[in-house]
């Protein structure tokens, strides 16, 4: 009894049943996964939390930067370079570079993950704004819109498909990077993935959950986009 409890603890909370021959032989056992799905719920929810918060903050920052740079072109170069360097830094390295400053936990993970979304979101938002036809702008001005009204009523709606495309790319990328967030002590699906990395069933299903999350979030954004751009459906 005590031995079993110790074993369970020493195994990072993952205790393989010795009776199941599929598991002891390290086969591929979907039955085991569905019997122990509760071990993945907390990491899964942490993963969702990290992705949603990071992409949300990243979008807010990138949006402001892109709208500003759209009017003040000299900002494009510096912002692209700085976010580009952030994007180049390997996430594992960035987690540990931030650790002495922000400590272990969600804050470090979210700062790093947010950093990775900036380049994609900034570029796409800016490209979307730049792709608005000059005719549409002129028509808006002709109707007496101020610059601010022009931005919110003409440019942003027309830029929406490109902005949403950026959001989709940033989201799926962040789902993948958040699998490394356990290095920063922020949990996520990387934790169960790494805890039993030699156990086939575990790696396939924990990895599969990441892919599933990416696909579902992608689909949600696509659906939101459809609702936000009713005019694209008429064609």
């Amino acid at each position: 009894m005590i031995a079993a409890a110790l074993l369970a603890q020493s195994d990072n909370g993952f205790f393989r049943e010795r009776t199941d021959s599929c598991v002891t032989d390290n086969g591929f056992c979907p039955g085991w996964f569905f019997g122990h799905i509760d071990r993945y719920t907390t990491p899964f929810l942490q993963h969702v939390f990290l992705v949603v918060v990071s992409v949300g903050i990243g979008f807010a920052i990138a949006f402001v930067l892109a709208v500003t740079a759209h009017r003040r072109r000299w900002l494009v170069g510096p912002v692209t370079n700085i976010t580009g360097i952030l994007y180049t830094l390997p996430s594992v390295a960035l987690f540990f570079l931030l650790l002495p400053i922000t400590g272990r936990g969600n804050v470090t993970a979210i700062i790093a993950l947010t950093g990775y979304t900036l380049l994609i979101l900034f570029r796409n938002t800016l490209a979307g704004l730049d792709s608005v036809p000059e005719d549409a702008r002129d028509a808006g001005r002709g109707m007496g819109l101020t610059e601010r009204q022009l931005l919110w009523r003409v440019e942003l709606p027309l830029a929406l498909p490109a902005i949403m495309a950026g959001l989709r790319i940033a989201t799926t990328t962040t789902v993948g990077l958040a699998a490394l967030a356990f290095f920063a002590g922020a949990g996520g699906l990387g934790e169960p993935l790494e805890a039993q990395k030699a156990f086939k069933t575990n790696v396939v299903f924990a990895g599969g959950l990441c892919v599933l999350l990416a696909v579902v979030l992608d689909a949600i954004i696509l659906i939101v986009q459809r609702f936000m751009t009713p005019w694209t459906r008429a064609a």
Partner: protein
Amino acid sequence: MTVTASIFSTFGDALDFIVQPRTGRGGGEVGGLSNNLQLIWEHLKLCIVAMALATAIALPIGLWLGHTRRGAFLAVSVSNIGRAVPAIALLFVFFAFLGAGFANVALALTLLAIPPILTNAYVGVREVDPDAVDAARGVGMTGLQILRRVEFPLAVGLIFGGIRTSAVNVVATATIAPLAGVVTLGDPIINPSIYGEEGRLGGAILVALLAVLTEVSLAAVQRAVTPRGLRMQSSGRTPRGRLIASPRRRVTTTP
């Protein structure tokens, strides 16, 4: 004040680890320039093998798909799936099914590197001005000649952009290779029980530098291989090879 000081001393210790050898917690000598250079070399070796394999596989397929202007679905799917599968999951799937070791990790990294190369080669060749291709056909070039002499030179910037994206990604991901039994520059990061906390931070600094250096040097190569007439256009780099819906830059028509 003390917090700032302690942060500085933490980073100072890490820099010290990079240049000064010391006895690791496991007994052996760790840190110092020669040990770290050894790790950097192991890291690069893994990346070079993976990149060579990935380029040999993905480049011909991407070029051919772009040349025939078919397989848009395949190219986009490969890029989407590649983005959705976390690198660490890919690494562990290879580890669990094939075991530890250089070859298996190199294969996992190869798979990771393929999508950006394939997609960029496909997009690059497909986006070549159809008039240029028609002209080449008009002077009697064969399909292969058109690909080699017209489409490839015009697309080379974008093609190399894909390779660069993959390379940076592979250098980053090789950091976690020690989890699958290959000692790379990620080893000090992943095994602080041997290298100590200063080794962990030192390793992170080195990995970050290596990635930035890879990016900067490949960007320079990309600029060098791009035909002069095309250099003013966009860098042709999609972040980690992902297809960004990129409307062509609008030509300003303000009077």
